[in-house]
């Protein structure tokens, strides 16, 4: 099961490389109507070269993984590129908003749970280096070992890592083991300063109980914090078969389980795990995010990249993925 879940990282990485190759990412200037547009621009400055460097080094490091990712990349449907674009932006917009909500000299920590090959740590350390007290990537042992190797073998990436060696930590661990995870995290985190936790397509692979435990334990342990979570939702309407079909398709095609897809199946059910009476929770689906947050001029640019054959399909898919933002003090 661990290996099957871990392989979903290859999907995430290949999707991101595709979205970069097809120029969905980085977003253009003026993508957001909000003042954080400029921050977003600087954040994405090197995103293409960083990922291509990582991907190139991966090829030398593991022909097997490279082959798997390369195979996944062969047929990038526009709907997939749109989705990757939206997912990437939604998480970064959430992160930037949380960072901006802190006092200007406030230091903070970021923890990417189930980070896989995500390279956000570089983007955020480059951008907010003096304020980031700690950036932790945590994932299964094998994923961390591969990532460490790749980062070390690339001169460019290793150089970056070296310059942040006091701040950036990669931790092997299994999120199902909540006590063990917490023990590892607390070694490197200062509970007195705000911490932002990210779970990007991570909780959906955990059982209801494990994910509940993980969220509540962390929220209890850290007195002030923020959480950004991105996941699919199965849909709560009686006629909505998206979740049932998704569960079956992923089970049939790769034996991948989504234990809570039909439990935390809607924008109102998904936040239950973070609701402790004191937390503020905002949740949006990705179709809302596209319609409300992305400017018309950027939408026009996206349209020009590939012919999008089915708006309805895009809407169905994107209304079944959500981004949750919550803060607790």
């Amino acid at each position, binding site marked *: 099961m661990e290996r099957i879940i871990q392989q*979903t990282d290859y*999907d*995430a990485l*290949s*999707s991101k490389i595709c979205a970069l190759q097809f120029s969905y990412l980085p977003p253009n200037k003026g993508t957001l109507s909000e003042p954080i547009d400029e921050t977003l621009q600087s954040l994405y400055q090197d995103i293409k070269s960083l990922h291509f460097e990582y991907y190139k080094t991966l090829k030398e490091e593991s022909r097997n993984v490279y082959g798997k990712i390369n*195979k*996944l990349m*062969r*047929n*990038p*449907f*526009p709907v*997939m590129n749109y*989705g*990757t674009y939206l*997912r990437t932006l939604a998480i970064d917009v959430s992160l930037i908003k949380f960072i901006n909500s802190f006092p200007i000299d406030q230091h903070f920590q970021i923890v990417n749970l189930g980070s896989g090959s995500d390279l956000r740590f570089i983007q955020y350390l480059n951008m907010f280096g003096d304020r980031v007290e700690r950036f932790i990537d945590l994932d299964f042992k094998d994923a961390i070992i591969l990532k460490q190797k790749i980062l070390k073998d690339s001169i460019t990436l290793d150089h970056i890592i070296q310059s942040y060696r006091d701040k950036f930590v990669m931790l092997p661990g299994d999120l199902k083991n909540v006590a063990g995870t917490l023990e590892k995290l607390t070694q490197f985190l200062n509970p007195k300063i705000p911490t932002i936790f990210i779970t990007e*397509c991570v909780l959906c692979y955990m059982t209801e109980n494990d994910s509940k435990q993980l969220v509540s334990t962390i929220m209890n342990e850290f007195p002030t914090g923020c959480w950004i979570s991105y996941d*699919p939702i199965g849909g709560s309407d009686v*006629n*909505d*078969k*998206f979740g*049932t*079909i*998704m569960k079956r*398709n*992923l089970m049939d*095609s*790769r034996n*991948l389980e989504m234990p809570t897809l039909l439990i935390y199946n809607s924008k109102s059910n998904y936040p239950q795990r973070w609701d402790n009476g004191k937390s503020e929770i905002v949740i949006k689906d990705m179709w809302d995010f596209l319609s409300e947050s992305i400017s018309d001029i950027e*939408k026009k640019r996206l*349209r*020009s990249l*590939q*012919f*999008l*054959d*089915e*708006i*309805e*399909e895009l809407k*169905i898919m994107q209304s079944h*993925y959500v981004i949750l933002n919550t803060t607790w003090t």
Partner: protein
Amino acid sequence: MMQIDRTITLLKQGKHITEEAVYSLCLKSQELLMTEANVTHVDTPVTICGDIHGQLHDLLTLFDKSGGVEKTRYIFLGDFVDRGFYSLESFLLLICYKLKYPDRITLIRGNHETRQITKVYGFYDEIMRKYGNSNVWRYCCEVFDYLSLGAIINNNIFCVHGGLSPDVSTIDEIRAIDRKQEVPHEGAMCDLLWSDPDDVEKWSLSPRGAGFVFGQNEVNQFLHTNNVELIARAHQLVMEGYKEMFDGGLVTVWSAPNYCYRCGNVAAVLRIEDDLQRNYTIFDAVQPQDGVGNAIIPTKKSQMDYFL
């Protein structure tokens, strides 16, 4: 004719068709389609079918549920290929039927029946996977260039894949288009295959990147000018299989159930009776099951269709 029957049998079983056989079918169907007008006349009763998108087992269900080609006349509104795993088989089955029963099947071109779109949306890749070279894809694309742009039923119902165009006010103007080419990026031919209806006041830009969005005004104008009562089109996924708009002046018919094997929608076909009464038949996707009925197990393809 013997060869066509043999090919139909093989196709229904999802079996391989030789490159030679595809070539010969494509050549014959080009010759047949060449003689058809841009807007074909069709008589009632007739069953109108929307997008198929390579979902062969669902196409077989469609024929099962709607009478079958031996007894029923059909208009297919295009988008035979792309997205599903059996684009080739679906398209070949339709052209085999067309060759065998020329007056019982009308095939209209969809926006996916083009070289450019099939390279992005799967048909090209499917051919490379099945044949190791692109010849079969090229033969099929040549047939695409000869497909009609529309049909007219009893001079009363206009059928098209996408919708209207600001460059077209009369059906005669469609008849004047030189259709035997790759679909251009703009202009009347492009719009007919790409446009969508919506609640808009006037012609608007389409979010798809080609064609236009048109509203009730444009539809009423077109119906009035051409003295027809209905525009039947496909092109847009409708979860309920069909959707009538603008006081019944336009209908969208969608015939690919559980589109892309993940959307969870039902499909529909629309039968137009002699008195022009509309009867919809709704059908669901067939659950893949070994050796049962027309169910074919979709080829195992690495699933990239979800965000993981």
